[in-house]
């Protein structure tokens, strides 16, 4: 279980004499074991910062983050991360990249070759195990990165806009694929995106953030049923959720005029 308690993050001033940047402002959230939660918000609202704090890459300025009841202080193998940018190690083959977590556990090049080979098949990367990352398409690279995160069967999967750079078709395929994997292994997933539809398609719960400083505007439970039926993206319920999220992200004009 992941618990964020009144978490804030200040970054050091970017210019001399400027004020520190408040990137995340008193964010509180709880994510249950096996739950799939999306954080959606416009670019620059502090989504990556939240994920990096949960991963243990960034320190927390105020408040605290607990994972499995323990205070997060540094990265750990029970929290696997899939990054926004392509992050395969270019000096390793696809096979070695995917088996990297096992190699680190075993302290030598992994002996669990069957496990890696099976993961490669599952990910539809068969025949590419000897290739280097630069010889793969963007979608294949990201699938390999997900495979690398999954192979150690982590309890928690932290994903930072993993499909942001993919074309629409590949992205839809990857979403289906991710859900299938999740149904099977049931990790706790914290998935970051700026794509409203993506968040509704994937999540049990969508956390909507507002920009600068990043705050949680609302949390919406998505009752679209599991396993997801892909036709539901045309259903009225789906559109209702979409409208709900979009309204929070972009308040109707007359409302903001009244407020101003």
């Amino acid at each position, binding site marked *: 279980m992941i618990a964020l308690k009144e978490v804030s993050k200040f970054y050091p001033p970017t210019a001399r004499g400027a004020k520190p940047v408040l990137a995340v402002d008193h964010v509180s959230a709880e994510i249950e074991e096996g739950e799939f939660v999306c954080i959606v918000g416009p670019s620059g609202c502090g989504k990556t910062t939240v994920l990096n704090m949960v991963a243990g890459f960034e320190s927390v300025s105020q408040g605290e983050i607990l994972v499995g009841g323990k205070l997060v202080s540094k*990265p750990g193998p029970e929290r696997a*991360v899939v990054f926004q940018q392509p992050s395969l*190690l*270019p000096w390793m083959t696809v096979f070695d990249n995917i088996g990297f977590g096992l190699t*680190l556990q075993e302290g030598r090049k992994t002996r669990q070759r069957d496990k890696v080979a099976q993961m490669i098949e599952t990910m539809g990367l068969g025949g590419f195990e000897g290739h280097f*990352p630069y010889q793969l398409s963007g979608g294949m690279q990201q699938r390999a990165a997900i495979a690398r995160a999954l192979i*150690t069967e982590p309890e928690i999967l932290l994903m930072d806009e993993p499909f942001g750079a993919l074309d629409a078709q590949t992205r839809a395929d990857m979403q289906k694929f991710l859900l299938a994997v999740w149904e099977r292994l049931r990790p706790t997933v914290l998935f970051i995106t700026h794509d409203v539809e993506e968040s509704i398609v994937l999540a049990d719960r969508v956390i909507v953030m507002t920009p600068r400083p990043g705050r949680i505007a609302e949390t919406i439970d998505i009752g679209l049923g599991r396993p997801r039926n892909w036709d539901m993206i045309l259903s009225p319920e789906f559109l209702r959720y979409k409208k709900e999220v979009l309204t929070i992200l972009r308040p109707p004009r007359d409302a903001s005029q009244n407020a101003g």
Partner: protein
Amino acid sequence: MGYSYMASDEIEAESAESALEQNVWKADKKAYRGYVPWLVAAVMIGLWWGVTALHLFPPTSLPSPGSVVHDFIVVATVGYSGEPLLTSTLYSLGRIATGFIAAVAVGVPIGFWMASTEWVFLAIDPLLQFLRPIPPLAYIPVMIVWFGIGETSKVVLIFFCTIPIIIISAMSGVKSVQETRVRVAQCLGANKRQLFRYVIFPSALPEIFTGMRVGIGIAWTCLVAAEMIAASKGLGWMIESAGNELQIGVVFVGIVMIGLLGYGMELIIRSVEHRVTPWKGKA
């Protein structure tokens, strides 16, 4: 309709295969790659020959290609001042190799250490920046006083001239590691040693290779200075000594030899680099 689709598929498959036979999959190698370097060499030698044939300069300052070839044959067979060209070449190569390999073996770990530990950087960086601008010739008296006039002083001179660039490239290689890659290893549970082995060291390799390529050039540049220390063999010694005796042809033989050997070493390092870091520039 179905038939026409099949037909067009077949045509496509056929043309794709014939394209394969023409090796289209090979990254387009430009035809001029094969001959431009040779063309440049030919033009240079042609110009050299033309200038000497027109007697624009006295032969004591610019010998003709023919007389340099003649001197080359003499130096290669009879030798210069009793030393055959091969002996001198091997001596010079040995000094360069020893000094350079020692500089890499010592410099790379120092660079890594400086990049990872701040006080080490603070301690060594001023020293390094202080040593860097000192010309090789200025070291000669010190080398003689400290290491005598044997092989040691020559090798140490090459070592000292080469090591700064190696240290700096190793250090900046480590510093240029992408944070995301470090994080990848950290969140998969890498300890410090594993982080270094699987992420930091491979990240630093391309810059280390660049440093080595610059370094080997510097090492050859130092050779003449190194062999001014009481040497009686070596290409640097041959150039220096023949110059004093106004045997300009032999000087040219030495210059051409150093140029060719330096070029050869560059090609070797380049091919090792290509093999060890095939991803360079692609990720």
